[in-house]
């Protein structure tokens, strides 16, 4: 069964303490992997799309990477405003829908 698994479920960091979030997938025919950020009471906000293994994307303190089995969202020197839930989603061959993982809740303390 096609699955998207994110880890850890929750992560607490001190401001400036870099870390990585993981998204592993078991879909056949990956056509794209997407990262979203969701703040409480809001809809998911698009961050990155990765299409092939080895691809990397960066935005401010965030960097997303992709291998054949997983993606990482690296957060460098996070700030409290980076606190949010980070969602990973995949699109696979034959379908345009996005299948989401359950997310990682990130809390960055000052």
């Amino acid at each position, binding site marked *: 069964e096609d699955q998207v698994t994110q880890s850890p479920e929750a992560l607490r960091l001190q401001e400036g303490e870099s870390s990585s979030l993981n998204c592993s997938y078991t879909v056949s025919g990956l056509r794209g992997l997407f990262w979203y950020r969701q703040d409480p*009471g809001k809809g998911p906000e698009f961050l990155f*799309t990765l299409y092939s293994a080895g691809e990397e994307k960066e935005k401010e303190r965030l960097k997303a990477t992709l291998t054949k089995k997983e993606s990482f969202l690296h957060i460098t020197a996070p700030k409290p405003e980076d606190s949010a839930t980070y*969602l990973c989603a995949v699109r696979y061959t034959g379908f*345009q829908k*996005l299948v*989401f993982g359950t997310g990682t809740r990130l809390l960055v303390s000052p």
Partner: protein
Amino acid sequence: DARVTQTPRDKVTEMGQEVTMRCQPILGHNTVFWYRQTMMQGLELLAYFRNRAPLDDSGMPKDRFSAEMPDATLATLKIQPSEPRDSAVYFCASGLLTGAAGELFFGEGSRLTVL
């Protein structure tokens, strides 16, 4: 600043009542999705439309849920009759998708509470 607009933002209703949620997708987007989010299940796809035609509604309980897109500026999700287990946040998302490419843009969601 183009965005997906959803109404209502919050809805509290009693079991058995009809609930209609509305979505105005971003102008020019060709694909519209309805997702439901709960703490237990995360984001689940209910249905989606491409160029207003329904492509997949396998995620919806067919006996009580229906989704339509009467025109390019309006998508609706209706629940009749509503049940307490339908309590969740319902998100509409739209995108200009060509093949596998194209990201989705989400609305702020409609929080539904069924008592």
